[in-house]
């Protein structure tokens, strides 16, 4: 097995996009005093139906941003290669159940929690990162990246 080849590295757009995400999260904190955790915002809006006014405004913003991306940066979207619709449906279920069980996701625990130096969020992030690497890499080896 040779060295791992680095491909498609886009450091500047990654940093810039990440900074924009962090800025948006800061804006939510400044405006509402809350963490910008997307899994909580979405489940709160459509499942629990609590605080729908600000959650609705934020989600409407997400969708509008998506529309802007569709027009201005359509390459930012993609359909996962080598993954059947059934696999994607399953992954959605796992993400939905898992983020509620964990009380957070990449934005809530990753961006907001780690910025707060939360040990709880660190535990969550390490877990989903390691498992995420394991699942994707396992599929890459075992199934040739196809599920």
């Amino acid at each position, binding site marked *: 097995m040779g060295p791992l*080849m680095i491909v498609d590295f886009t450091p500047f757009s990654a940093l810039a996009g990440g900074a*924009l995400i962090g800025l948006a999260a800061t804006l939510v904190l*400044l405006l509402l005093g809350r963490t910008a955790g997307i899994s909580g915002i*979405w489940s709160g809006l*459509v499942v629990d139906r609590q605080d729908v006014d600000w959650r609705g405004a934020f989600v409407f913003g997400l*969708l509008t*941003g998506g529309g802007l991306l569709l027009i201005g940066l359509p390459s930012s979207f993609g359909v996962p290669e080598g993954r059947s619709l059934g696999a994607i449906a399953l992954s959605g279920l796992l993400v939905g159940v898992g983020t509620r069980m964990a009380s957070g996701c990449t934005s809530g625990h990753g961006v907001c929690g780690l910025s707060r130096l939360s040990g709880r969020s660190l535990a969550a992030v390490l877990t*989903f990162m390691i498992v995420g*690497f394991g699942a994707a890499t396992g599929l890459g080896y075992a199934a040739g*990246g196809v599920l």
Partner: protein
Amino acid sequence: MSGFLVFVAGVLFALGLGISGMTNPNKVIGFLDVSHTWDPSLALVMVGAIGAHGLLRPLVLKRPKPIFASAFQEPKNCDIPGKMLIGAGLFGIGWGISGICPGPGIVGVASGTTQAWTFLLTMTVGMAAYGAITRGSDLSAATVPSPKQNG
């Protein structure tokens, strides 16, 4: 006014996801799958996001209160229960399969693909099912309701 500014925050968040590559599941899988090649870009997304939010957050917290709320309500729970770690594991598996996490799951429906809608639908079903299963059971005391979630 508050609604409009929160809307703007959502737009910025989505643009950040798009520019960073998070809305492209193949780029995410390229990061999480190290079996053949590796795209380390998404590590820098986290660096950029935590860098920006980590630097700005203390400045915001110097204020006595948020602009449109009576108090700051960041989560205060410090427990690391097994349930949370199992949930993080399940999330990790799902994320590793599709390369989609909640934020991109919502923004992605703008692309209109069947895959994007399917993910958002089943993610919502999963969230609802978990809520329904834990409501009223012994677990519900340990289940944090949405306002206290880390998101």
